[in-house]
């Protein structure tokens, strides 16, 4: 994965830039010592590293605006950063960029249970948004697996999902309003405590724009009352295909589970070895969770079990208590840890139409042989969002490249069957150059034209999302 070379003219402006930032911001909000900026050299896509020229950590929307205005005047690229948990390299700096981190913006600004929203500063972590409202029985629905660490700013930038989006939607469906700073320092408000903002749906447009259109400093988020309860059923099958049909039949039957998780044999075995959750040794496992009162849960599980029985499951285990639920989830929740113990792994994020599940799993199995790398599949089956985990050895020369080639082949397959490159992680640098496999040049051109409107100088996170070749003219014009 290439990054454009740093612009020497910008590097030459470093001392002037740092001096101006220091004048405008509190002294501890500007970091320029190379020993300290190294902390920001990568996000969770750790294969790629590059320390930025400087880091700013503003403590208010006004300070964000000041910092952006200075960078804008000096034509310095800015890479916004939430908590740095991006798996796609969304917060990877370039050597001639300033990292703008929202880590100090963590306040809850308003909670309103009557109108069911919370307004927070966007450096706040996803889980602590729920933490702020759970004593009243409420929660914030999007739940990416990094929710303990990831920030709302990053959730908005990547339109993050989670395991429960089959029922509750992803970030864009739960975002009611934002305060956002444009690259030139202009502060705008979109939406608020009401539904469906006025004018064009700019809120929908900026959600998932990977920090390329503006820096979101405050967000109004929809909160919901927690369900009375939730319990899963675990269903094992001796073929992926049958498991796929079962998913489809459950959905068709009119039950809408809150989550349908799918694990294949390599994943089941790894989880079992790691966590000892008592999973059967079978080809495919489904964990289907439903919500409601006890009686409502029983009724829904009964329907699901009846459907599953028609598909000849090798195992059927209904949870009747919190302990049994925890046991069923134990293996699934330790999947990533289990994989990490076996080897280095790369986690993919393509989405496919649910009907293509058996075909895609079969092809991934075949490709695993062709590339000579093992792969385990664990994913949100209800919405077709796959997370193949490709195992490789980072210390073995050539393995990372082989792994990336395998990953690219899987993602192209996702597109080929009617799906997409990324369901919830974002494009970042990781899938940037695959965009031409999903979109025609004019489809990309109009997306870049959107960036032209918000950030005419292409200073915000410029080398992400679009293939470098496609964005070259615009980035060069800016430099």
């Amino acid at each position: 994965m290439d990054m454009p070379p740093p612009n020497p003219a910008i590097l030459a402006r470093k001392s002037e830039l740092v001096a101006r930032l220091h004048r405008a911001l509190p002294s501890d909000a500007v970091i320029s010592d190379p020993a300290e900026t190294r902390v920001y050299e990568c996000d969770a896509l750790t294969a790629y590293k590059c320390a930025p020229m400087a880091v700013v950590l503003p403590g208010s929307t006004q300070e964000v605006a000041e910092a952006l205005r200075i960078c804008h005047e000096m034509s310095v690229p800015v890479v916004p950063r939430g908590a740095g948990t991006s798996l796609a390299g969304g917060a990877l700096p370039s050597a001639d960029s300033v990292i703008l981190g929202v880590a100090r913006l963590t306040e809850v600004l308003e909670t309103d249970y009557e109108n069911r929203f919370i307004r927070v500063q966007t450096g706040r972590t996803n889980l602590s948004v729920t933490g702020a409202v759970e004593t009243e029985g409420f929660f914030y629905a999007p739940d990416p697996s990094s929710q303990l660490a990831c920030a709302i700013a990053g959730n908005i930038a990547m339109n993050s999902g989670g395991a429960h989006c089959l029922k509750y939607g992803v970030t864009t469906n739960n975002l009611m309003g934002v305060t956002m700073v444009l690259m030139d320092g202009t502060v705008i408000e979109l939406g608020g405590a009401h539904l469906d903002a006025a004018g064009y749906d700019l809120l929908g447009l900026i959600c998932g724009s990977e920090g390329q259109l503006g820096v979101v400093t405050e967000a109004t988020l929809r909160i919901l009352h927690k369900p009375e309860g939730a319990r899963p059923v675990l269903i094992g099958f001796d073929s992926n295909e049958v498991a796929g049909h079962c998913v489809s039949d459950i959905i068709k039957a009119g039950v809408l589970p809150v989550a349908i998780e799918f694990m294949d044999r390599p994943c089941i075995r790894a989880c079992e070895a790691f966590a000892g959750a008592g999973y059967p040794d079978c080809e495919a496992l489904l964990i289907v969770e439903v919500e409601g009162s006890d009686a409502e849960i029983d009724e829904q599980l009964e329907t699901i079990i009846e459907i599953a029985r028609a598909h000849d499951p090798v195992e059927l285990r209904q949870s009747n208590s919190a302990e049994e639920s925890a046991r069923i989830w134990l293996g699934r929740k330790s999947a990533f840890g289990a994989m990490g113990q076996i080897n280095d792994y790369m986690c993919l994020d393509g989405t496919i139409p649910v009907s293509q599940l058996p075909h895609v799993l079969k092809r991934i199995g075949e490709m695993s042989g062709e590339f000579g790398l093992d792969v385990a599949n664990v994913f949100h089956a209800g919405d077709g969002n796959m997370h193949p985990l490709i195992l490789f050895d980072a210390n073995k020369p050539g393995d990372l490249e082989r792994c990336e080639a395998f990953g690219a082949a899987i993602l192209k397959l996702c597109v080929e069957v009617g799906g997409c490159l990324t369901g919830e992680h974002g494009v970042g640098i990781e899938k940037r150059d695959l965009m031409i496999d999903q979109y025609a040049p004019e489809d990309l051109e109009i997306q870049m034209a959107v960036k032209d409107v918000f950030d005419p100088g292409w200073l915000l996170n410029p080398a992400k999302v679009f293939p470098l070749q496609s964005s070259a003219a615009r980035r060069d014009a800016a430099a």
Partner: protein
Amino acid sequence: MKTMEPESEAELAAILAGAEAPFRVQGGGTRPVGGARDGVPLTTRRLSGITLYEPGALTMVARAGTPLAEIEATLAAEGQRLAFEPMDHRGLLGTSGEPTIGGVFAANVSGPRRIQVGAARDFLLGVRFVDGRGQVIRNGGRVMKNVTGYDLVKLMAGSFGTLGVLTELSFKVLPGAKSAGTVEITGQDDASAITALSRALASPFEVSGAAHLPGGGDGPARTLIRLEGSQGSVAYRAGRLQEALAQFGDLGFDHDGEAVAGIWRDLRDLRRFHGRDGDVWRLSVKPSDAPGIVAALPGSEAIYDWGGGLVWLLVPRGTAPAKIRTPLAETGGHATRIRGEAGGGTFQPLPAPVAALQEGLRRKFDPRGLLNPGLMDGPAQMASD
């Protein structure tokens, strides 16, 4: 003026690429929000047909001109539906013809269930459209989770054909409900009705409709809470809500399928305002602000939906937009005129920097100003209203 009715996306693209004069873009023409406009009528109604339906994946793909009725019938045959419950504007606006799926999404039309499941825009997964330069553009796809590139799908939803002419849409559908019931409170004033609805919506009981019809000529005020699901589940949740809302007096519970469907259909389509003289405005506000806003507009008649977050106002014909929007300056929210004299002021004026972004996008998508000029226009024109 002869209506342009392209029969294919390619024909539409050729028309727009070679065009010299503006168009009035429409689907079935049943929702002429913003009143009469200049331009040659251009309809997508011949771009019709469902191209893909996978009930097991909860997804459908259809060309923009496909009649809504055809889509709803196809879904119903599999026990599924458009969960966002799009309103039928014909009764309110006195229009005829067939609403199209393209029109539904272009106007982001959502009904009472929006409060639970989201708006039309939340269900739209992918679009194909022809922009003002005559280019065919694709964005999104047909899968439920997709963050590949910018979300132009959301941008197109609710842009009223000003950025491009939609040709094909893919969208998420949901299972229909096995049964439905309405918990009803009678005789509440607006403020306590909204309080009751807020309490219901802040419960774990998955309310799928929360509306208030103030008292008037045809009887006392009715506050309505819809529950959907299996019969046992609906009855259980109705019981729990009746307990939780006991302070609001005797709560009725209706679970007659036909009757429940009828009440919510009438509410969705604003039947109460049909055949009545006056302009109709649609306000999106913070629910608890709604009763105060209505009280600040004497002479108006309100219907509250979305727990108070959506207010429909029937006001005397020709009421100035500024009058409707004055209370919103304090509270936030926005107002759109859905029925009334043609002219400016239909859409909420936007703050200057946001209006500039909107105008900038419009110039990129439609540099020659061919698509619905005058609709959703910038602040300068609106300020003169």
